[in-house]
């Protein structure tokens, strides 16, 4: 990524925003697994 690239409006850097997106996916998978287990 070029050095001049502006930061996103939240979290301060794109890396953190990407981590948020991937973290949410991981959380969803864990919660879905828990959901399946809790109601099966």
């Amino acid at each position: 990524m070029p050095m001049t690239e502006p930061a996103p409006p939240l979290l301060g850097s794109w890396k953190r925003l990407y981590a948020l997106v991937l973290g949410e996916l991981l959380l969803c998978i864990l919660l879905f697994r828990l959901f399946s287990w809790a109601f099966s």
Partner: protein
Amino acid sequence: MSRLDWFVLASALLFVVLWGLWKGRGATTGEGYIGGGRDHRWWLIGLSIIATQTSAITFLSTPGQAYVDGMRFVQFYFGLPLAAVVLSVTLLPLYHRLKVSTAYELLEARFDLKTRLLAAILFLIQRGLAVGLTIFAPALVLSVLLGWSLHVNILIVGVLVMIYTVTGGTKAVAWAHSSQMVIIACGMLLAGVMTAHRLPAEVSFGDALHVAGGLGRLNVIDTHFDPNNRYNLWSGLIGGFFLMLSYFGTDQSQVQRYLAGSDLTQSRLGLLMNAMIKVPMQFLILLLGALVFVFYQFHAPPLFFNPGPVKQVLAGPDAAAYRATEAKFAQARTSQSRKAEAYVSARHSGDAASIAAAKHQLSQSHAESEAIRREGLALIEKANPGTNPSDTNYIFLAYVLSSLPVGLVGLVIAAVFSGSMSSMSGEISALGATTVVDLWRRLVGGSQGQREVWVGRIATFAWGCFAMAFAEYAARLGSLIEAVNILGSLFYGTILGIFITAFYVKRVRGGTAFYAALVAEVGVLACFKFTAISFLWYNLIGCAAVVLLAWAFSFFQPRQALPEGEPAT
């Protein structure tokens, strides 16, 4: 439908068209018409991306999928956030730096004209055919359940979409998408709340989830690896990743949405917004389907939700046998309802042994009902040879029409129309843009002024007419429809492979990528024809084949300096 339902439906659709027309007015250049003026904010881009991929059949079929098969379909979308992050880092900056109008322009800068044209034409073929099905499938469901004419349905959707898409281009499409997403969200949310509300008074939301889970409908995550199993964690994460990478990175119907962003930041945020919303959204739609399944544990469902094939059986020699199976099924379901009530009562008692016994009895009763249903399906299949006896797409709308209150029925049907219109508008707009930018502008030439706006309008109109004509023809395709449905995966892998080669295999030049793509495409088509591999894996196979073949072929290409301005990797 009641007058109130008609009023809600007509008002919603009229608003979408007028809103799109109003917000999309004023395109005076080709760039303004195709690029939407490049002033869209992230939330508009995000809504437009979601709306383009949310066709009517997505949310007609998805609750039905949960009803029949459980919630594991959500795993299909697990590759999306991964793909969105990869695209935000790699392709989006490049698209913005080169100020391209279509994804395929990039390939000429890196390879040559014929590789660009190959990718553009593959897109036009697969998307051009798919857009017809986008409007045909929901029109068929509506015509069967509501008794409306299939042709009138197709005509209404097609004409409404073309009014604002042909007139206003990308900007009109994006703003119409925002209103369509509001209608879809309201319709689905209210349907979900009302479904939970319509369960028997003694059945709480938690009880409903235990009933659904006890009968195998809350199986969200399947970690067992099986390449022939369409929906599991691994096919979603790996196969889905490549599918989403190709769809969001190289399919013009999506690329056009985020290229309309005012800058790279807005485009990225729009794509990431979609990545964060899509998985929970699909989960909620599937949960709605699971709730409909629970609803029918306490109310009698029909043996088969699609009345069309049932009429065929009742008109044939197996009518008596089918009637007898229906009666047997009704009796079994009455018994199953009592077992479901007993299970809920046992849960309220808190006695573990009673709960286990009641759950076992409910499962057994459900298995008996399913066995009878399979007998009915066999009769339907016999009376409708060559067709797939599936009523998945009909379950949700049949439930809405029979069980939801006046007004909400109109809103849900408006949501179905909105879904149909949103995907069709995004797709014909992209088909028009690719025709203008990659074929007309590149091969015929011309200015990007008012003349190009009119060429864009004619191309978009022509693709809209083609979509409607194909939708009419689709009624005669029968079982071939399923093959057309997986068309995307047959081509996406190859297109993605060309783009990945462009990025990461620097030694490959023009003709080499072109011939590698041709050979890989033949390989993917051979996999489809001769193997049982699930279609999601075609994306990986096609992509890997292009990259590996291009790399291998590059050792035989003439030595030549790398062209200047090659994309950085």
